């Protein structure tokens, strides 16, 4: 067994590998760029080496630097994590030449599976079901159009070397191909340094289901069940689960066995993932094989009890698998939510900046429910524009799917992140969605359920009432404390002697009678026959309130604002305040403030750099027309007109760096 390994990665995956290595008694070496000098993986590792400036192309993607670091520290093996050099044949080859073990598959397998076209041919030969498509190299847009028409629309344009949604486009007609092919080619070059793009049939109502495989160097190959990753947004996975709510035992077995056959065909070793697309009749087609540890591997670990990183390390060290296919038992249900630094209310644009507050839910195993959080950040860390915006993978495991979902909801409620925008409200909405709960998923789930984008969640009247009761507690507690200030004419004067209150949540009044009581408070809403009892030991120091309202568990984040409190629960945030009945009466006389009309402006939706302005002053524009392109986190974002109009002023120019909500254009 190795005594020291180097992790050629960063973020949560580097931290996750370090954890297992440490448990196995193996020393770890981290590498880092300038942007990561204070990163969590650097702190966790036994040693850390600086390998270059922030851009990945000048640090994490430089094989030379990594190999030099290995030599310098005397590590015997390299774990590549995912992304970066994890599926880079040249890197694996170099390691082999240098006599350094690669904790991953052999060079040939990476090579064969890394090329999407090559891998399809191999899969077909191994009798794995494949999607109809054209696997040759396409030389230009005209040829792409011809081939696409031949296959029949819709088709998918994909970078050969791609993954993770980059360089992928759906084309519904010829115009889409003409627009999308050059763009996909450009993205393929910038993301992977390889301009090859291929075309295949786009399966409708598809689910994304993948099989985890594990093989050793001695010819043993197993499949560890499936993961369903249908909840995707623009091909970026958001929620994953294992097992899939869709597969039956026979399909699972068939998919597993085909996956094993494919592995055998390339003498696969280590952990890998065979991705399938599954249609509504449970026909499945091979999509690609990922010859690395997958982001969503924790859900498989949770239902199988197998530590995949440990297995990868053992296999790389030449050990035989100690388990057989019969030993693999799927136990319970696991969910994973990817927590991204992005703003779900602004079309999921990246959000960078400082993590002013970051307190994930506690990891725990309690009453058959496991909460696991794989993270690479910490409170006070900086989310930079250089890398993937994923900051954590929150996982839950429970005996049944619904229990895992509920546990996820609770864990999300307690996930306290401030300073950047994040997708927790959105993931919480997915967890609450009836269709998600029924398991009726397709990869278009998000696009279908939120066609106009995400604008927040509605809470049920019952939940709102419970939040009103908690608001009462917050204000009663504060009222008692106000009575303890020094300098009173009569010591202990309290301003909460009145019992008739009006609690207001987002402008809706909940009149009632509220009084502090043992361990919390009692709130009798007008019209209710009996009081509801709030029990909590919350104080204003805690960001997360844990309470019960008539026995119902409530986990709510509380933010103090000057004149009210914000209560965040199940992905929704409401303004809460309590006033005396009289004050509420007078408040009712106050005019409502009308928010300023922002439709006359194009505001920058995220911090970024202006690439180009596509319009001129005085120009008439139609809804949907491109107005400007802003680059953020290496992605070019096209800002389009929301309605018809005329441009009256341009406030910025190409090359300007913009803040959120900065005015780009004004309309007449």
């Amino acid at each position, binding site marked *: 067994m190795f005594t020291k390994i180097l992790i050629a990665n960063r973020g949560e995956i580097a931290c996750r590998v370090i954890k297992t290595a440490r448990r196995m008694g193996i020393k770890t070496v981290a590498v880092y760029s300038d942007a990561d*000098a*204070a990163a969590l993986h650097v702190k966790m590792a036994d040693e850390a080496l600086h390998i270059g400036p922030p851009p990945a192309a000048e640090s994490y993607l430089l094989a030379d630097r990594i190999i030099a670091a290995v030599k310098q520290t005397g590590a015997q093996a390299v774990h590549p994590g995912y992304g970066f050099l994890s599926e880079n044949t040249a890197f694996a080859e170099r390691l082999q030449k240098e006599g350094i073990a690669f904790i991953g598959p052999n060079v040939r397998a990476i090579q064969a599976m890394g090329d999407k076209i090559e891998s399809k041919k191999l899969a077909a030969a191994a009798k794995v079901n494949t999607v109809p498509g054209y696997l040759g190299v396409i030389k230009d847009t005209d040829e792409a159009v011809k081939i696409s028409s031949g296959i029949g629309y819709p088709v998918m344009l994909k970078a050969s070397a791609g993954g993770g949604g980059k360089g992928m486009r759906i084309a519904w007609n010829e115009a889409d191909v003409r627009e999308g092919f050059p763009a996909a080619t450009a993205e393929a070059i910038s993301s992977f340094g390889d301009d090859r793009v291929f075309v295949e049939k786009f399966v409708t109502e598809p689910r994304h289901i993948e099989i985890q495989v594990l093989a050793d160097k001695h010819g043993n190959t197993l499949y560890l069940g499936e993961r369903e990753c249908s909840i995707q947004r623009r091909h970026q996975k958001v929620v994953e689960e294992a097992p899939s709510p869709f597969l039956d035992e026979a399909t699972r077995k068939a998919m597993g066995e085909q996956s094993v056959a494919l592995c055998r065909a390339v003498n696969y070793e280590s952990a890998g993932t065979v991705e399938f697309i599954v249609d509504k009749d449970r026909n499945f087609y091979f999509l690609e094989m990922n010859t690395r540890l997958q982001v969503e591997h924790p859900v498989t670990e949770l239902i199988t009890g197998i530590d995949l990183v440990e297995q990868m390390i053992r296999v790389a060290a030449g050990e035989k698998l100690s388990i057989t296919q019969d030993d693999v038992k799927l136990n319970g249900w696991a969910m994973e939510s990817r927590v991204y630094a992005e703003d779900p209310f602004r079309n999921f644009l990246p959000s960078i900046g*400082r*993590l*002013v*507050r*970051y307190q994930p839910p506690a990891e725990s195993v309690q009453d058959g429910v496991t909460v696991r959080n794989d993270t690479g950040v*910490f*409170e*006070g*860390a*900086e989310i930079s524009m250089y890398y993937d915006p994923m900051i954590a993978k929150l996982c839950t495991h429970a005996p049944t799917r619904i229990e895992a979902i509920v546990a996820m909801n609770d864990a999300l409620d307690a996930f306290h992140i401030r300073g950047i925008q994040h997708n927790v409200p959105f993931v919480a909405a997915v967890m609450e969605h009836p269709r998600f709960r029924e398991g009726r998923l397709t990869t278009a789930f998000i696009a279908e359920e939120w066609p106009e984008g995400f604008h927040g969640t509605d809470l049920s009247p019952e939940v709102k009432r419970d939040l009103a009761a908690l608001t009462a507690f917050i204000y009663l507690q504060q009222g008692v*404390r*106000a*009575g*303890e*200030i*020094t*300098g*009173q*004419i*009569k*010591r*202990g*004067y*309290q*301003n909460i*002697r*009145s019992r008739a209150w009006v609690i207001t949540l987002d402008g809706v009044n909940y009149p009632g009678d509220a009084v502090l009581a043992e361990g919390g408070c009692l709130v009798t809403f007008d019209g209710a026959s009996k009081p509801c009892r709030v029990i909590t030991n919350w*104080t*204003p*120091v805690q960001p997360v309130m844990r309470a019960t309202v008539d026995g119902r568990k409530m986990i709510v984040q509380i933010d*103090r604002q*000057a*004149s009210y409190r914000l209560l965040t629960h199940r992905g929704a945030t409401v303004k809460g305040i309590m*006033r*005396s009945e*009289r*004050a509420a009466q*007078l*408040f009712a*006389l*106050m*005019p409502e*403030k009308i928010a300023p009309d922002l439709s006359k402006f194009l505001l920058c939706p995220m911090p970024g750099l202006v690439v180009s302005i596509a319009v001129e002053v005085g120009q008439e524009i139609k809804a949907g027309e491109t107005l400007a392109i802003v680059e953020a986190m290496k992605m070019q974002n096209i800002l389009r007109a929301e309605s018809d109009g005329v441009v009256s002023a341009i406030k910025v120019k190409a090359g300007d760096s913009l803040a959120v909500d900065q005015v780009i254009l004004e309309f007449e």
Partner: protein
Amino acid sequence: MDTIGKLEAKRLEARQGGGQRRIDGQHARGKLTARERLELLLDPGSFEEFDMFVEHRCADFGMTEQKFPGDGVVTGWGTIDGRIVYVFAKDFTVFGGSLSQAHAQKVCKVQDMALRNGAPIIGLMDAGGARIQEGVDSLGGYAEIFQRNVLASGVIPQISVIMGPCAGGDVYSPAMTDFIFMVRDTSYMFVTGPDVVKTVTQEDVSAEQLGGASIHTTKSSIADGAYDNDVETLEQIRRLMDFLPANNREQAPLRPTWDIPDRIEISLDTLVPDNANKPYDMKELILKIADEGDFFEIQEHFAKNIITGFARIDGQSVGIVGNQPMVLAGCLDSDASRKAARFVRFCDCFNIPIVTLVDVPGFLPGTAQEYGGLIKHGAKLLFAYCEATVPKITIITRKAMGGAYVVMASKHLRGDLNFAWPTAGIAVMGAKGAVEIIFRNEIGSPEKIAARTEEYESQFLNPFVAANRGYIDEIIMPHSTRRRIALGLQRLRNKKLENPWKKHANIPL
């Protein structure tokens, strides 16, 4: 029996102010009546009214026919969270709240009582100015109020809340009080109104553009804060009063907290970015050291390069002054200096310890600043800190450069506790500027200059040089900032320091 019945009837009449029609009119304009406002401002049932039956004595212009008990202002006392305050509230429903001699006498009476009894006074303004029918009696009434404002200044906190029109003579009483708050969209204040402006300067301007909350909180700095409506405004005044002592002989109030004084905030260790030119938000530091993250900001929208406001640390009220690196790199300019100077002097008047958070690259250069009198405006802040005898705790988080270092509550200005974070750099100027002056003859050689810059940075841009001389008492870890301040405040509670006797100092106004 008859007298008691009459009393009840008179009281009922007085409470009606200018009558139901005018009350409805007030509501229709989105405003509350004087008595409704006092109900919200004060603890329920605590208001005791004075001079309810006072009426004007004007006999001209048929005024004898028009009399309303109270004469356009409601005065009295009550409590806020059990602590006494004196109040007067202009009643817009009676003669538009205009000021008569009798009206002025009522205000003067509560001003006198507040001063004599050592309790704050809060005025709610919503009035049409002088009562023209009363002529010079009205003007004299204003003068009496002004005189009392000045005598009370620095003895008891005086707070003005503008909740409707406030023009002409009415503006100068608020202007001489400690804080002015406004209600957005329904209040405005100016010396001369839009009509006069139009006649004299031909400028076409609305009342809002001339003197609304949006102007006075951002451009003129007349107002210290603004809120959306009457109810929210009064709720915030209650919140503010809990930070202030009753008078200048009392210590600032203590309020228990659930927060522990030695709470550490590890994330503060990464607040200051590695790159010295990268901004960060000083408010994060304030919110992380304040009890329960509760901060009452003063002049939030004006001169944002400096932050001022009240917080509590371990229950103790403190005034916080902090440079804001997010705006103008935290430079001191004329506006920031004036804003902070006034705040520091308020704290010093009322025994509120001052916590100063320093990250200042210097004074803002340029003709605009120099022509605008930066020297004397900057001197105001310097003067205020020099003069202050309350406990002064200073934390240098990053830059403390040149004269601005001295100004920002440095050790030399009788700072009680001067701490620096390890990221602090205290010097006459930044490395580039310094090297170009000291090594002027090497300017032709970029390598030499680079080496000198590095030398300067390592030698001077750290907290050690100042600590070495005792100008910094201790270099502290950012995560322990709250604990250090809390400890310091405890130890400084009995601080006694007096300035030489004088009639008053001559601050460069």
